[in-house]
């Protein structure tokens, strides 16, 4: 309850700061919060990429984060923080890449030019999996552990909610934005890894 109140307070503060903020909360039909969902609204990308470093680290034989959302043309670095080496790859149609065995001292990065979903895995460690979502809008946020994503200063438009395991067409839902900046509750059915 305290958390909810503080969240509401934060929303009020941010509402005062920006013209249009959208808060989206994603839950399963059972009411569980859905993390790692990408919530996006349409918007124009700036001409030159922002100077932001996108990182898909490998640590403890896991990718971190599980879902990374990047704008089109962004470069993603794949730092290896494990003692073992990894062989990161993706067979995504337009963003396929393969970073053959490399250790923690070796820096690797990939530029994703095509928007779309890029499942990435490690050829050595079958259980390692992560998703990079390449979008053509600056307004895209991954839901936190509470299933909440806040988009600040967005223009009006349909809200797209994507999750790698969503039981929906192309793993996404497209919804109308809320009318007066209130919270959009999205119910998304997700499954486990196949």
């Amino acid at each position: 309850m305290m958390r909810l109140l503080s969240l509401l307070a934060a929303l009020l503060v941010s509402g005062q700061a920006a013209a249009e903020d959208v808060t989206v909360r994603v839950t399963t039909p059972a009411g569980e919060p859905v993390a790692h969902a990408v919530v996006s609204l349409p918007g124009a990308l700036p001409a030159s990429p922002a100077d932001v470093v996108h990182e898909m680290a490998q640590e403890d034989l896991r990718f971190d984060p599980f879902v990374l959302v990047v704008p089109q043309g962004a470069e993603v670095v794949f730092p290896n923080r494990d003692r073992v080496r990894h062989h990161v790859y993706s067979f995504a149609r337009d963003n396929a890449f393969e970073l053959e065995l490399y250790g923690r001292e070796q820096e690797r990065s990939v530029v994703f030019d095509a928007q779309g979903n890029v499942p990435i895995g490690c050829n050595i460690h079958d259980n390692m999996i992560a998703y990079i979502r390449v979008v053509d809008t600056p307004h895209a946020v991954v839901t936190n552990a509470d299933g909440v994503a806040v988009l600040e200063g967005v223009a009006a438009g349909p809200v797209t909610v994507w999750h790698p395991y969503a039981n929906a067409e192309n793993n996404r839902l497209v919804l109308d934005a809320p009318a007066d900046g209130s919270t959009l509750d999205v119910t998304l059915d997700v499954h486990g890894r196949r």
Partner: protein
Amino acid sequence: MRFRSLRTKLAVIYAGLFALVMLAAAAASFYTVQRNATRLVQDEMAAMAAVFDRIWALNARQMGDAADILSRDFGFRAAVATRDVPTIESALDNLRQRFEFDIAFVIDQQGQAIGAGDILSGETIRLIETSLEARETPGGVVVLDGSAFHAVARPVRAPDHVGWVVFAYSLSSQGLNDLTELSAIPLEARLFWSAGDAGWQASRSDGDDWRNLLGETPGEQDVGYSLDREHLVSAIAVDSLSDTMSAVLVLQYPVAQAMAPFRTMMLGLLAAGLAGLAIILVGSWLIARGLSRPLQALEAAAGRLAKGEATSVAAPGQDEISRLAHSFNTMGEQIAAREKRITHLALHDPETGLANLQALEQAVRDLSDQGEAEQVFAIAVGIDRFHQVRGAIGFALSSQMIVDLAARLEQVCPDVCLGRVATDSIGLVLRAEHAATVEAVARQIVDLANTPVTLRDEPVDLHATIGIASLADTRQAGLTVIECAGVAIDQARQAQQRFARFDGTAYGDPTRKLSLMSRMSAGLSAGDLYLSYQPKYDFRTRSIRSCEALIRWEDPERGFIGPDDFIPMAEETGHILPLTEWVLDRAIADQVRLKAAGFDIQIAINISGRLISDPRFIDTALDRLRGRAGRICFEITETAVIDNPDQALAQMERLREAGIVIAIDDYGSGLSSLAYLRSIPAEELKIDKAFVLNLDESREDRLLVKSTIDLAHSLGLKVVAEGVETAESVAVLAGMGADYAQGYHIGRPVPLGDFLASLKGRSGDPDQRPASRAAS
């Protein structure tokens, strides 16, 4: 169940019981063997099922391992992810050949089967895909193009799920039979599957024949019999690749084959059972025969004994039956002895030990059976006055006398049958060609039987009379020949002879007598009997004032039957009472008629001596004669009083008091006791006609009659003279002072009509007739 023979009964019961036990034992053995055999086969099948399970699992793992390796190969994953079909197909081909799989394919994310040719329809793929999603390591039966396969599927992840790699080998009968070759028993295996409601299907066209092997729900069946009970069936549920399909592996084993090793044992059991049964049947029969044989012998002997034959049974051994036979023999001997004694008693006179009447009658029958009846004779030797002799010398000596006489007779006639036929007579039965021969023998006997015997050293006079009869005599007499001889003794005695031949004519016919009596009773009703009246002439009034009623019988067939012919018989047979009552009624009625015609006549009736002492008769007579005092006279002979004087006199006193006139009839012919003359309350005395008939010629008769009249008068009795046939007699009697005369001269007995007519004829001059007779 009822048996007619003990042997059958024992044999059937023994054999039945033994057979029952044998049958039970055989059934138990059969059941046990059958069960053990079934269990052995079932165990084998269960073991086989376990083996199959392992092989199945092994195959699944082998395929799974291969699929795992392939699905994780980076190059293969890249090929699948990028849908590099030729690469995928070549990789699948490579692996299929290496592991000898029948089918290998990949289902990609577009739902396309790569490397499977065209055996997979889109629908099948979707079905398989849907089923695979929920499984960890999917594997199981899949049906492709109508054939069953054992398949495994592994996901291809790159790293996201991009498809399934599927390996499969055919579950054709060949493949299954390879499996069953591992079994020690010749099993056959078939795979059945059921998708949805389609029912069970088999992988081969001959699956229909297998259908009856399956239970209702094959998957739940462990090991059991097929529906037609000709196979043992084990159904093993196996995994199916598709959720909507179930599959079972059915192992079957023909029962006949399963039981073949035990058949020899069964046959052995059966043979042993049959042999045992045969031995039991024969043994039971032998035992039963051993038991029943002596019993049958006993039964037959008992039958012979019942018929009176002498019999005995062999009684070997010491058992109960032998003892029974022994007892039976003893019983038979005792019965024979007793019978002999009884027969002896029955046929012998216990007093003298001589044969008795029955024995002699048997001898007569035997003799008559041997030849002509005319040649069979009986001689009866009757000791005269035996009762008196016995009274004099005692029973013992009189018996001895008979024994001595019999001994003498035996000396004369050694070959004849001799016996005591009555207390005082010895009978002899013999066969002779002529009666003369027998009479000669009789004469010899006469001499012997009239010679004194010596009893206790004292000579005792012996007199005997001999009667002879032939079997021919018995025909008309209705007696046995011995009885006829006895009658002949009586006839000889009557004739004052020492011996006589039986006189059938003199004896008459007793049966005829009886029929005469029934005829008489009928005649009374029919009016064949009537009364005739004979007048009595009253000397004092010179008129007819009384008469005697005499019974007459005019039989329509036999003609006139004299009173002497039926009155004595009526007395002997008891018919005299109704006859006398009838006479009484008739006389009273006739008296009434006479009175009506103007004649007051007293009627005398002859009353049998037997009736006088019978109170019943007196009662009925008094009843009938009430009011007729002095009008009826009862004529009674003195003999009536002799047998029972007190009773007779008392009854006569009753009659006299009632005014019945009593006349003593036939006086002078019998005992004519003066004592009775005094005591009988009579009013009249009738002098017997024997004294009156010759009154004219006999001086003695005249004296007797005169003195009798005087005696009667002096006792206050009136005198009736009977048998008055001449006028002279009438005159003499009148002179002697007789009161009444009766006889032909006075009037013959005539029926009532004639009697009335004669009375009327006299009425003009009552004295005329006797007087005129007297005068003439």
